[in-house]
């Protein structure tokens, strides 16, 4: 049968073409981790040339280190420390202005649930020490004096403190800001697909191998469990939970997200996850919603149409903002 051979060759060609097409290289991926801002920061960047990617990732880390030095409460040379030490405030550099502006807005809108003046309170609770102790009422009220949404005001590049002993703590927003800046640096280097993850607060740029990034949300009570998996592209994901840093005493868990009015850990939520367009905003909103509780927290989110959230209340029930379903992975 004379048509045999051409047919065979044709079929073999089809197979070979399919193979070649499917086995096209996926491009390069660079993955680096570094210890920064008291946590492990991991940057994953994908693209065509590993040299460009490495340079971009290095630049992103450098920017994060710079911001860490500027904004960290634990660095005695930082701007934040200087402002905390001074009696009335002082001049701040532009990155700090950005952070403070956003922080003050959230502080105001959340009725003080998000607060940047809890430096004294955090020092008091001293989660960092080996044997943390419960502060008493007197210590708490001393740490909270002067704290509140009106405690700071910003005019141009001048920060004013309402009371001299106020200690600033930008921990609830600075990490997010650093991630946002790292992403901006990556973008400047032409990277279109990347992830910057600072201990669970992250921004996902572009896609992961031609599909959206899949982000698992830690279950607040099951160590190996995942609450949900969401599909993210060009968005920030921030989770605040009562399981990240805590100690237990007499069967009660004391965690690191404080209610600025009582000085005690906020009790209404187990975890809050925010998906929005900047990690700094997500960071601040996650803290605010956590303190406010599911009802008031989700009401706050309504004022931020670009943000969606998932709240696990203290009793384990789940509440989410109306647009949250757009991120859920369809089973």
């Amino acid at each position, binding site marked *: 049968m004379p048509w045999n051979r051409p047919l065979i060759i044709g079929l073999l060609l089809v*197979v070979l073409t399919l193979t070649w097409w499917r086995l096209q290289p996926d491009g390069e991926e660079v993955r680096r981790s570094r210890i920064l801002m008291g946590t492990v920061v991991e940057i994953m960047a994908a693209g065509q040339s590993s040299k460009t990617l490495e340079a971009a990732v290095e630049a992103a880390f450098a920017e994060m280190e710079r911001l860490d030095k500027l904004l960290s409460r634990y660095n005695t040379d930082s701007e934040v420390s200087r402002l905390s030490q001074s009696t009335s405030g002082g001049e701040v550099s532009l990155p700090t202005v950005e952070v403070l502006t956003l922080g003050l807005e959230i502080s105001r809108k959340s009725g003080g649930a998000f607060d940047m003046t809890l430096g004294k309170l955090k020092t008091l609770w001293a989660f960092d020490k080996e044997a943390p102790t419960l502060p008493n009422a007197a210590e708490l009220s001393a740490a909270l004096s002067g704290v509140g949404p009106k405690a700071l005001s910003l005019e141009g590049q001048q920060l004013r403190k309402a009371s001299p002993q106020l200690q600033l703590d930008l921990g609830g927003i600075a990490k997010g800001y650093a991630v946002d800046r790292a992403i901006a640096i990556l973008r400047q280097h032409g990277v279109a697909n990347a992830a910057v993850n600072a201990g669970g607060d992250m921004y996902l740029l572009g896609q992961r191998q031609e599909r959206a990034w899949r982000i698992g949300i830690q279950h607040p009570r099951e160590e190996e469990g995942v609450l949900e998996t969401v599909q993210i592209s060009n968005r920030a994901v921030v989770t605040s939970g009562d399981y990240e840093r805590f100690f237990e005493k007499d069967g009660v868990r004391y965690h690191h997200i404080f209610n600025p009015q009582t000085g005690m850990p906020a009790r209404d939520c187990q975890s809050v996850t925010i998906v929005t367009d900047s990690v700094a905003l997500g960071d601040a909103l996650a803290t605010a919603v956590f303190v406010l509780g599911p009802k008031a927290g989700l009401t706050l989110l309504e004022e931020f149409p670009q943000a969606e959230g998932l709240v696990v209340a203290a009793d384990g029930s789940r509440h989410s903002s109306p647009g949250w379903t757009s991120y859920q992975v369809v089973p």
Partner: protein
Amino acid sequence: MTCSADDIQALSRSRRQVFLGLFIAIAVSLHAFESLLPTPVPWLRLGLANIMTLLALYLYDGRAAWSVSLARVGIGALLLGRIFGPGFWLALVGTLFATSAMIIVYRVAGRRLSPIGISAIGAGGHALGQILAARLLVVQHAAIWQVLPFFMLFTLFAGVLTGWLAALLLEELREHPAFQQANGALTNQ
């Protein structure tokens, strides 16, 4: 009526066509029958239909083997309603690899290998082709290759079995006048 050389050629050709048609029919039946049997893993079959491909290869030539194997895949898929489904492509690529391998090795090794060896090679090629097709079309990540060694072990056993059955059949059929070539010589390479 005189028997000219042309007539003998024509007779031989039509006899070949008839028998290959028969082989194809038997191969399809064997395939359909096998598909009815339960298997632990889908698409894990003994490949009894390959016996007919081997017969075609030994009694005729490589082209005959291609005819039988490809027709079996196509008609078998049509019959079972799997045409152009994923199973079809796996079988097609597997068959392409298997038949090519068998024909090439047959031509190269000649008498040094019996149908059992040829069949074993064909079975291995079939496994390789199936996994390759699965990797490209069905399973999107490289973990599928990890299945290959297990698959090959199984197909080795299947290949030896079908090769043995083919060898038994060939022993009988080779002597039969129906399968003599036009020039009277026995076929074996």
